């Protein structure tokens, strides 16, 4: 609740001050994971509403972030022991989003100051909450870097510099590609307006990522009725085994 109030406050208050706020559109506010799901392109577009003339001295920049549900992670590092590579050190990451994309109208580090990044947790590095490393481990930073590196390789974390198109300092749009291996949940979507490296306005919405139809039914059955689900899996396996055997025998007799 406090977060909601805070975001409303952040969203409204600067708008009153600077008189620039966001009107948003989404190509869809729902991603439906069906049997044929292989990723989804979300088109995020909007306009800047203002009560005052466009400021002349600075350019308007737009930053858009989409974050999947956060979850705690264990990150392990291998080292060589007795000639083979084994997991030896582990660090818990309190919360890391399962998906995170940040698109900006310029290079992200040019668009906002470091202090603003720290406050709003915009860049991929800041979006991962602090790492709770045991005292015995030096270079805990390496572990959170590894999370970013591995997830960037899987396209789960994306930093998209120069990917937000801004027209006439008023209209903006970007497309974010969500990969096939998405986790279900509410994807928090934030849009920031920045001038001269400072955030002047913020808008938040969510994109709902849900399994539907058969996917939904199987997934919830596996969680709510695991024994029934397991027996069903076995029944299918036995039936398929018998079916194939019977079919082949029929083919052979003919």
């Amino acid at each position: 609740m406090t977060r909601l109030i805070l975001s409303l406050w952040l969203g409204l208050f600067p708008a009153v001050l600077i008189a620039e706020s966001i009107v948003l559109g989404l190509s869809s506010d729902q991603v439906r994971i069906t049997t044929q799901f292989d990723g989804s392109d979300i088109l995020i577009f909007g306009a800047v509403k203002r009560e005052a003339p466009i400021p002349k001295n600075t350019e308007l920049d737009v930053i858009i972030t989409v974050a999947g549900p956060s979850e705690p992670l264990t990150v392990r590092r291998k080292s060589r022991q007795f000639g083979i590579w084994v997991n030896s050190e582990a660090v818990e990451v309190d919360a890391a989003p399962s998906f995170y994309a940040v698109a900006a109208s310029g290079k992200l580090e040019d668009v906002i100051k470091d202090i603003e990044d720290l406050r709003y947790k915009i860049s991929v590095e800041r979006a991962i909450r602090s790492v709770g490393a045991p005292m015995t481990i030096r270079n805990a930073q390496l572990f959170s870097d590894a999370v970013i590196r591995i997830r960037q390789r899987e396209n789960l974390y994306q930093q998209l510099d120069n990917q937000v198109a801004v027209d006439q300092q008023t209209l903006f749009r970007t497309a974010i590609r969500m990969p096939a291996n998405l986790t279900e949940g509410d994807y928090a979507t934030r849009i920031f307006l920045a001038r001269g490296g400072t955030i002047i306005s913020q808008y938040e919405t969510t994109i709902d990522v849900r399994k539907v139809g058969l996917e939904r039914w199987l997934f919830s059955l596996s969680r709510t009725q695991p024994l029934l689900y397991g027996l069903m899996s076995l029944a299918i396996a036995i039936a398929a085994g018998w079916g194939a055997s019977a079919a082949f025998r029929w083919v052979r007799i003919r």
Partner: protein
Amino acid sequence: MLIYLPVAEVSINAFLLLGLGGLVGILSGMFGVGGGFLMTPLLFFIGIPPVVAVATEANQIVASSFSGVLAHLRRKSVDFKMGTILLTGGLLGAACGVVIFNYLKALGQVDLLIRLCYVAFLGIIGILMFIESVRAVRKSHISGDTTPKKHRQRTWIHSLPIKMRFRTSGLYISAIPPLLIGVVVGILAAIMGVGGGFIMVPAMIYLLGMPTKVVVGTSLFQIIFVTGFTTLLHATTNYSVDIVLAVLLLIGGVIGAQVGTQVSTYLKAEQLRVLLSVIVIVVCVQLALELLIMPAELFSIESVEHVR
């Protein structure tokens, strides 16, 4: 054609899965192995989360083994008495194996355990089998005799109590060794996410002295129950059985198993064993190299289990 797997939460080409299932199914039918020792690493490789791969593979093995065992039933090459004793041990072992698995999972060493088990067992069995089967093939070439030589030595196995007569296998031995083999195979099956046929088949041939023709059917019979039990354990504790993945793999698998059973009737038992031992050694070397060579990525991510 891409298909989204509801539990694994990834999108995979359906034909790739059908093909993998078919390939491993052929091996299953030919050798009486579940094929899990090949399929599980292949599933990791195409991007299925390991926990899901292990659990789903168990379910798929049920299907291909059931299909295989029906073919063997018609040829009367299943020793039910021996199979029942093996599976009693197998169920006990599987339960122990799951306990060990969960303990090491908490320590973060379950991957290492799985790999070390693979390397050790595949290495020992592959080499022993290769030497023995090459020798057998050579002998049959020299003498022109195609029937496998039965050389029954009287070892410690024959001096154990609780002797039973196994008519189908033509054996009169103690029930203790098959029971123990069942337990060991059950433990390994639960830890390694395989049916355990590749361990049980050589154990039945070399330790118990069962005839090769009966070994395959009996091993498949036992595997059905142990993997079925493992599937239920995984489904109820880890929620990690993906039914869509299983169906795709088993469609390919059951067809492959039938083809494999047919192929095996045209090949000589000794040749089958040479082939199987070569496959086992190749998989072993591959896994050993992964442990010895410095990995490209030293870090790995594991999501902390949600309490539901």
